[in-house]
């Protein structure tokens, strides 16, 4: 089914499976601006894959291509061994891909619980009438979905804010609620757009712990974008490095750290 079926073991003993998603020669343009230029890489089942790069490197655009929000002008996206036609984001979501956003996109006026429940929307089939009357299927479905949501709430340790409106929460907790909503969708592939932006050291450590635990506990494949190099190097299995829309490095954190192009991009190099 996959073109690279062999699996490998990571240093800490987890097994990384075959290729889950493959990006082939992706190019994305906005008018005359080339955001992504001919980039190819893959995401394997069960791994934590990071995309890093300086500001404006095209990381978020890349994530938006994966999530189906942007359709690239050139190139192919292969998901689970099949070529993915251009899709609407909700169709991508139904394929088991969930995401969080760089600038938190929660329903501010709703409680944490209700926000996380929206993550289960794709798993609800009851009609609008039975939902409104909370009757039959709708009732059973809600109970089932609430159970999934409660497990996520327990997992991310946000029981104490279950009933709190999101607008009253501090930033770090909102990020965690967003992760909860994405997890509630029970995704195969989880996309995290700068999960640690704007956090203090302690919050970053907590978030890293949760990301590792999600991967470990549910076997979720995770693709994340992050600025903080040290965090990325600590938690990811493989890293793609982008700069000015091009891929300049790809490999394990160790490989990438010693890659000359990466060092230049991060530390800066004299342009002549």
């Amino acid at each position: 089914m996959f073109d690279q079926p062999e699996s490998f073991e990571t240093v800490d003993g987890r097994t990384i499976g075959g290729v889950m998603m493959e990006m082939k020669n992706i190019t994305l343009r906005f008018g005359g601006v080339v955001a992504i230029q001919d980039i190819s890489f893959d995401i394997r089942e069960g791994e934590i894959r990071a995309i890093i790069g300086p500001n404006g490197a095209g990381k978020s655009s890349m994530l938006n291509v994966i999530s189906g929000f942007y359709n690239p002008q050139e190139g192919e996206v292969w998901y689970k061994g099949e070529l993915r036609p251009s899709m609407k984001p909700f169709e991508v979501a139904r394929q088991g891909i969930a995401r969080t956003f760089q600038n938190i996109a929660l329903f501010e006026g709703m409680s944490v619980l209700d926000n996380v429940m929206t993550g289960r929307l794709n798993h609800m089939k009851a009609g609008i009438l039975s939902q409104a009357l909370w009757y039959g299927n709708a009732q059973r479905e809600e109970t089932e979905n609430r159970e999934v949501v409660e497990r996520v709430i327990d997992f991310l340790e946000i029981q104490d804010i279950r009933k709190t409106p999101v607008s009253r929460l501090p930033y770090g907790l909102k990020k965690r609620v967003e992760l909860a909503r994405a997890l509630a969708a029970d995704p195969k592939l989880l996309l995290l757009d700068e999960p640690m932006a704007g956090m203090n050291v302690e919050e970053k450590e907590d978030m890293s712990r949760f990301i590792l635990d999600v991967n470990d506990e549910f076997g979720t494949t995770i693709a994340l974008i992050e600025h903080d190099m040290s965090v990325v190097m600590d938690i990811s299995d493989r890293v793609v490095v982008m700069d000015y829309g091009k891929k300049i490095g790809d490999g394990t954190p160790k490989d990438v750290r010693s890659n000359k192009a990466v060092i230049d991009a991060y530390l800066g190099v004299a342009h002549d």
Partner: protein
Amino acid sequence: MTATASADLISMPELLARNVLKFGAKAAYREKEFGIWQSWTWSEAAEQVEALALGLLTLGAAKGDHVAIAGRNRPYLYWTMLAAQSIGAVPVPIYQDSVGEELAYVLDHCNARFLVVGDQEQVDKVLDIKDNLKSLQQIIYLDARGMRKYDHSKLSQFHKLQDAGRAAKSELIDELADRQAKLTYDDTCVMLYTSGTTGRPKGVVLSNRNVIETSKSSAQFDGLVSDEEVVAYLPMAWVGDYIFSVGQALWTGFCVNCPESPETMMTDLREIGPTYYFAPPRVFENQLTDVMIRMEDAGRFKKWMFHKSMALAKKVGPELLNGHPVSTMDRVKYWLGDKFIYGPLKNTLGLSRVRIGYTAGEAIGPELFDFYRSLGINLKQLYGQTEATVYITMQPDGEVLADTVGVPAPGVEVRVGDNGEIYYRSPGVFVEYFNNPESTASTKDKDGWVATGDAGFFEENNGHLRIIDRAKDVGKIKDGRMFAPKYVENKLKFFPNILEAVVFGNDREFCTAFINIDLNAVGNWAERNNIAYGGYQELSQHSAVLEMIKSHVEETNLSVAEDPMLSGCQVHRFLVLHKELDADDGELTRTRKVRRRIVEEKFSDLIEGLYDGSERVATTTEVTYEDGRKGSISATLEMRDAATVATQRIAAE
């Protein structure tokens, strides 16, 4: 509870078996999980305990083994205690927030063979130190999260161990029955480590007799029945929790409710509405601070109503509770107040149904105490120790005073020694300190009298005991007047803005103090007064904060000066510390009592500064983070003078 019934009930497992017969289908344990209260009846709980006991037998647990337990309050861990007892082993609950070193000391000291923990956090702490623990054979954990990759040769999951026990039931059930049958009244019931304000923790051995006799008499004293609801949230390693959530719960058959997480405690408390409630003064204080902060933000009408009603409650509430005569008019007004203010407020606090509330561990501020009593909550004080299986004195209903700790508990004899130290003798007096005959001998004499280490006296008019201070902390100032630091510290701590205070002065010219501000209260005050600050340290040194603390210190001096014996304890100079005193840094015990000697050593430069007249002292302090790493913080602290009241000097001579 008839006397004949108690004749056969000589161990915890027997009490459990009795409860299955008597209350089989009644809820015994509840825990909130996944947002829903899960409950277990006495029969179900007994089955769980049996499965775990059998599981422990499959691991080869022997009679007399120590089974250590570390985790937050959960039914599973309470069952672990019962399971250990039913195979003749001894449960040793440990403070779950202990750092690795403390944990290592206890595990090593009691040669624990088994350790039952809540989650990965505890497992990680033990894995770091396991090479030094020769006797530790198996770690059993509840929550598997994050431990999939761990080496499981010495690890097992709680429920899997229970399953193993159930599978081996036919082979091992006779062995289990045999072990239970051999338990005697004088076998060890539980071993609890005292947090120790000085030196290493000591393992206090309590027998079945200690626990059962004490539970029985204290339950009778307060008329506890099987319909009580309690919320178990205080550390399982603390003797109070053992008596309330295990001893008395098994004796009277009431239900123990465990919160979902420490953070949801207040919500869970409200949902359960306990009828029998215990909290240290700190918890009551936090609740009151929360209420006051929220009232500050309320509208003008609500504020007026609140203050008006509270003024009435203050006058009438305690009188009503103590059964004193109150005019009909006041009764009507209080009734109205209860409908509109006190009732809803008690409901918000989760205390609507409290029939008997206790506070102990530290002195409680009279204002704080009266606040709760004026709402009609029957809050009382008790005085106790681990070595006494909690109870030494307690306040009977209707005889409750803020500054005394009541009369001797049933079956307890209390006497005050020539030096003012309090001694007691009771059926609850501990067996011994584990592996420490010298300490045992120096604490308990051959007639069974135990020295408490506290100084105090019986009030002449009502026979209630009043505690002054730790006997060894009581000293003299250079001019010969009595020095009792705790007396002053308690007065300081009664101000909501002051979290902790440490007073110095033994063998010195005058008294000085370290103050810890309460970040919640002072932070809120700062917000309302438009005072900007970047963190704890900055807020603590803000000149407006120092001024405010100074006014508190001066007010305290006024009140201290009223007592001719203790007027020398007025605080002449003080400083506000740049960090909160913390148990992780060894400055407090796990039950949050100040370790005076360690604070004195650690901040000796600051103490010198207070006495040599410096205005500022720069200092660097080492801090320990929760995960055991160390760091340091530096600050320049300001020393302030406080006005004192001149009094006629009465020499202690």
